[in-house]
């Protein structure tokens, strides 16, 4: 490996003259201690006195020891540092301080004439060793390693040409798959490129290998194919593009073949059906035998024009894999069973469809219900808002109501206060029992617009539901809001727990009189009038 490297360096000229220290750009950056002497092509063999006895090359940066021997600076330092302090020539003790630069020798060595390391490429220059660096920069024959790593060395002049024409590492686009492939492998790649088209041997159409696999079978126009009626006896073969013409021209022939085949098939089916059960034309065909006629194509069914019109109805679908005798013996049952099975399937299918329908209906229903509920609540809200402070409450089934009942909410105006009514009835304390009535403020979206505490008047009315308006005697009890009471503060819960009203508005005994209770229904009216400043 090391040797190869060396050889390559020789070619490139980076190291052609072992002038590494002159060329710091060398791909093998050398430390001081790894640079041996000059390995140049000297015009005349350099005198032995200039040979380093360590590297056996011409001294580079020559040094002389106190014992009088010359070495390359790096060679002697490396020796001293690695092998102890003695002279390699005479084994005398020696240390680094006794090694001195020999500039006289250096000057003489650098004046020695050398040949360009690229002589073999045609450079005939000879120059002094010290000019090597200058020459390397201008030498037209100097080879450099191809940067693409193909291992070739080329002169600067030929570099472009090398890259585009010979470098085996240069990437070339495959004309089929457009992948970039090294020149070295492109030929092999093109041979094996999965997208390389080849002419179809029959129709010459260009296709990739993968396409060719199915091409002949499915769409090559030149491929020989059988007539589509081959199985029915048309033994003509032709190229695929002629097939259409053949089909057209031989329609009559094909129909004949079809006819023959159909009769043969009928014959076969007939042989399968039980002789005892062949339906006689004179008998009125029972539903079962009708079915059999259709299913098994018994020859008597030929009377049936419908059957004739539909020769494509195949009996094969119904024939069961039973031995011939068994088929003969059991076929009515088999046919019945088949029919039943079919019916079952049909019914199941219908059933399933129905179920689905019902499901979708109930979903729809639920949706409608929800919509209705929301519409109703909207409506009641609207009602409550539009009552303008006058709210009627029909308390039905009064005699059996709970001791405490709340009405729905209502608003004093569209953007006004929201309230509800509460009645307390203590039927248990009858006859001393009384009806209590209160208003409660409810939390609403209007609260932020309104003045708190509420101030204004509240009028409770128990309506006399007499048919004759003239005879009606309503019980009317007005009240003025006392803003100090908690009942008139802005509600902090859904409904202010404190209410305001009459603990004993009227005795239940009194309610029993006149028409206050009509059909056990009490009609209450409340009018809430906020003071105009609110």
């Amino acid at each position, binding site marked *: 490996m090391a040797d190869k490297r060396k050889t390559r360096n020789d070619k490139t000229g980076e*190291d052609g003259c072992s002038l590494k220290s002159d060329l710091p750009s060398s791909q093998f950056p050398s430390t001081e201690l790894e640079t041996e002497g000059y390995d140049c092509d000297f015009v005349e063999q350099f005198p032995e006195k200039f040979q380093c006895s360590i590297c056996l090359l011409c001294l580079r940066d020559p040094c002389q020891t106190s014992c009088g021997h010359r070495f390359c600076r790096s060679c002697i330092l*490396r020796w001293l540092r690695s092998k102890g302090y003695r002279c390699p020539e005479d084994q005398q003790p020696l240390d680094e301080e006794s090694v001195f630069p020999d500039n006289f020798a250096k000057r003489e060595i650098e004046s020695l004439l050398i040949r360009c390391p690229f002589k073999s490429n045609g450079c005939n220059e000879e120059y002094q060793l010290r000019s090597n660096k200058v020459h390397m920069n201008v030498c037209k024959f100097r080879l450099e390693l191809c940067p693409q790593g193909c291992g070739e060395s080329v002169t600067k002049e030929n570099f472009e040409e090398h890259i585009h024409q010979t470098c085996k590492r240069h990437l070339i686009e495959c004309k089929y798959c457009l992948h970039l492939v090294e020149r070295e492998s492109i030929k092999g790649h093109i041979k094996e490129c999965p997208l390389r088209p080849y002419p179809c041997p029959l129709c010459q159409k260009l296709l990739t290998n993968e396409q060719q696999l199915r091409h002949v079978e499915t769409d090559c126009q030149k491929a020989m194919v059988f007539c589509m009626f081959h199985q029915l006896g048309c033994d003509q073969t032709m190229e695929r593009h002629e097939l259409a013409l053949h089909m057209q021209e031989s329609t009559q022939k094909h129909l004949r073949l079809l006819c023959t085949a159909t009769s043969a098939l009928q014959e076969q089916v007939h042989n399968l059906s039980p002789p005892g059960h062949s339906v006689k034309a004179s008998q009125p065909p029972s539903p079962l035998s009708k079915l059999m006629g259709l299913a098994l194509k018994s020859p008597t069914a030929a009377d049936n024009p419908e059957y004739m019109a539909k020769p494509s109805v195949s009996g094969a679908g119904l024939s069961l894999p039973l031995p011939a005798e068994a088929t003969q013996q059991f076929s009515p049952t088999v046919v019945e069973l088949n029919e039943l099975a079919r019916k079952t399937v049909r019914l199941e299918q219908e059933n399933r469809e129905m179920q689905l329908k019902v499901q979708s209906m109930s979903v729809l229903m639920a949706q409608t219900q929800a919509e209705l509920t929301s519409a109703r609540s909207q409506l009641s809200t609207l009602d409550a808002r539009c009552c303008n402070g006058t709210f009627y409450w029909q308390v039905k089934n009064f005699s059996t109501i709970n001791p405490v009942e709340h009405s729905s909410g209502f608003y004093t105006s569209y953007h006004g206060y929201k309230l509800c009514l509460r009645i307390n009835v203590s039927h248990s304390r009858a006859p001393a029992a009384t009806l209590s009535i209160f208003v409660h403020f409810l939390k609403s979206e209007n609260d932020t617009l309104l003045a708190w505490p509420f101030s204004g008047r509240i009028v409770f009315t128990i309506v006399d539901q007499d048919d004759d308006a003239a005879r009606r005697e309503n019980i009317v009890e007005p009240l003025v809001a006392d803003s100090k009471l908690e009942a008139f503060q802005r509600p902090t819960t859904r409904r202010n727990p404190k209410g305001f009203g009459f603990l004993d508005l009227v005795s239940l005994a009194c309610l029993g009189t006149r028409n206050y209770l009509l059909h056990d229904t009490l009609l209450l009216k409340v009018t809430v009038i906020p003071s105009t400043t609110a």
Partner: protein
Amino acid sequence: MANIAVARIKREFKEVVKSEEAAKCAIKVELVDNNFTELRGEIAGPPDTPYESGTFILEIKIPETYPFNPPKVRFQTKIWHPNISSVTGAICLDILRDQWAAAMTLRTVLLSLQALLAAAEPDDPQDAVVARQFKENYEIYVKTAKHWSYKYAGAPNRTPELDSKLKQLADMGVDEHRARVALSSCDWDLARATETIFS
């Protein structure tokens, strides 16, 4: 291998080939592989020694740190010498160990080995058996060394009297080299050698 080692070995190789000694067929080197890490050396047995007329093959391995470290040298040809192992061919020579100097070359190494054949140093032995024989029974050592040179290094047979003993052992079915080692180690005392082999 570092560049310096290769460059040097190439030059040394030329040096040996062009040297006077090579001309006289006293030393020789050949390449074993193309990257100069392994060489095959040859030295002629020096005249007036038991090794005279023998040709001894050396295995030379060049370390990457050459010439800052000595080459690794070993005799491939079997040899009977106090400073060379009769079993492995390992050499005990100071310049191949601590006394190595970078100015030494393949040529000087080969010449030093030749000199070692001419002047053994039994007090610094590699092969204790040979060294003992050298010191205690020099004549037998000379004979043995001559016999080994004849058998392994192509020298003429100058000790035909030893062949009969070898043959006796060979007749007993003993491998020839084994017999030779046993006899050589037992100063050619057949009885002792037999005992060594069969005990």
